[in-house]
């Protein structure tokens, strides 16, 4: 009974959300077709749709997608590996936590994107500077979550496992890791989002290729409807990735 009511409620809020997005689309259509908004500022949604179909059919997005995806994948893997390893090591000692946790949290609060010019000077305009920046930026939430996750595992559980004779490996595998996993997954999710954000953002500022780069190029050529088509394409990919990550996170939490 309660179950059904809950379901109905969830369906109702979904309907409102979809309705809101539809209303925005209709407003957009009305603004460009009837209310005289300049098409150089805001293109006709139907023209954007045609461009999107053309982009997808022709496969014109492939080279740029490949660049952005490579940058992102390499950066996220590097940040995840370094963040979890460093975080675990720091979490093993109260002294290291006391020294490094505030330091890392402090650096995380700086808008690191400001260092993009420096990264470009060091690593050039190509993929390397995006990978380096993406890794740096997403390293911090991951390392901080890893420290928090491992250091907050209930002491009673560790004592209980030790009293039953758990080896170091067993303690890690059956107590520390499952205890820390939900918090670490939260950090990975934040790292995922901001790595993507910083890579796409820095592509729009200083780059030679990539989806962000292409979008700026189209803007400079005043090809507004194609630019919007690309933006829609990126938004769709990011939404899809976020869905996958949310799903994985939920599964990990249930297991964890």
């Amino acid at each position, binding site marked *: 009974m309660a179950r059904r009511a809950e379901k109905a409620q969830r369906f109702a809020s979904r309907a409102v959300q979809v309705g809101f997005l539809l209303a925005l689309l209709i407003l957009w259509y009305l603004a460009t077709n009837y209310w005289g908004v300049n098409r150089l500022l805001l293109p006709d949604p139907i023209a954007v749709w045609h461009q999107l179909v053309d982009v997808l059919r022709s496969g014109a997005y492939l080279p740029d997608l490949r660049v952005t995806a490579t940058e992102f994948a390499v950066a996220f893997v590097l940040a995840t590996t370094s963040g979890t390893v460093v975080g675990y090591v720091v979490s093993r000692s109260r002294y290291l936590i006391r020294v490094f946790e505030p330091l890392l949290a402090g650096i995380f609060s700086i808008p690191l994107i400001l260092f993009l010019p420096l990264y470009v000077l060091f690593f050039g305009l190509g993929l390397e500077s995006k990978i380096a920046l993406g890794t740096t930026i997403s390293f911090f939430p991951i390392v901080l979550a890893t420290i928090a996750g491992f250091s907050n595992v*209930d002491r*009673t*559980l560790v*004592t*209980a*496992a*030790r*009293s*039953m*004779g*758990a*080896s170091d490996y*067993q303690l890690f595998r*059956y*107590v520390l890791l*499952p*205890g820390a996993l939900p918090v670490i997954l939260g950090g990975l999710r934040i790292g995922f989002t901001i790595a993507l954000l910083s890579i796409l953002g820095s592509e729009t500022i200083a780059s030679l290729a990539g989806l962000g780069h292409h979008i700026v190029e189209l803007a400079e050529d005043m090809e507004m409807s194609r630019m919007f088509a690309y933006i829609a394409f990126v938004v769709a990919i990011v939404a899809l990735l976020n869905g996958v990550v949310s799903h994985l996170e939920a599964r990990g939490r249930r*297991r*964890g």
Partner: protein
Amino acid sequence: MSAGDIAVRIRGVGHQFGEAGETQYVRALSDTSLDIARGELLCLIGPSGCGKSTLLSIMGGLLPPTSGSVEVSGQPLRGPLPREISFVFQENALFPWNTVMENVRLGMLFQGVPKSEHATRARQSLEAVGLAEFAHHYPGQLSGGMRQRAALARALSLETGILLMDEPFGALDEQTRMILGEDLSVLLAHTEKTIAFVTHSLGEAVFLADRVAVFSARPGTIKKIIRVDEPHPRKPGFVTSEKFAALRNELYALLHDEIRKAVLESAQARDARAAGGAA
């Protein structure tokens, strides 16, 4: 008692946290000696902070004493002895991400029980505590009393000679406590286990114990040991008997002064800290 009959021998054990002069310096336990006979159930009772839980951790090898020595079955104790000593903690010592069954099996995995025995032993110990139907529930889906039954099942499956219980029913309501106490008495009457049981409850101590060790206020040491001559399993009627009332009253008289002293001291310590903070 001959040497072979003694499961745990505690000699002059003391413990302090921190060093003298430091703010967190606490003398928890001072110069305590005690022999626990094989097969007996000994309750440790005393005011809060008297070091009874500290003593339990020391006799389980979880905490090295700052002075004195502990022998288990004639051997000096240097660390946890998972094959000889198992624990039931106050609460929340079950792995919340594992089911009751998985918790029991993990204990056996840690202790090194051959895999082939896991299923039988887990089933037996869960049946013994009346939790067989809940084997596949997660701790979060169980009541506090059921969680402690599960923790007890995990300890029983390890088949150790010594069982140390640190206020296992401390977080439970009075009625659940009573039922668990009765069940525990029945369960343990059939085993040869040596048990040390820390509790705050006078009734629980008299109901369960062969002997009750009464602690003085901090720094704690054993003030007196009271014997409860009543065969196990104890009948529910024992609670209303005159013998029970007499023993309970004796414990109450012994503890009353110590509890007052402990409360007074902690109030003084608080005032001293406040004065220090103001200066």
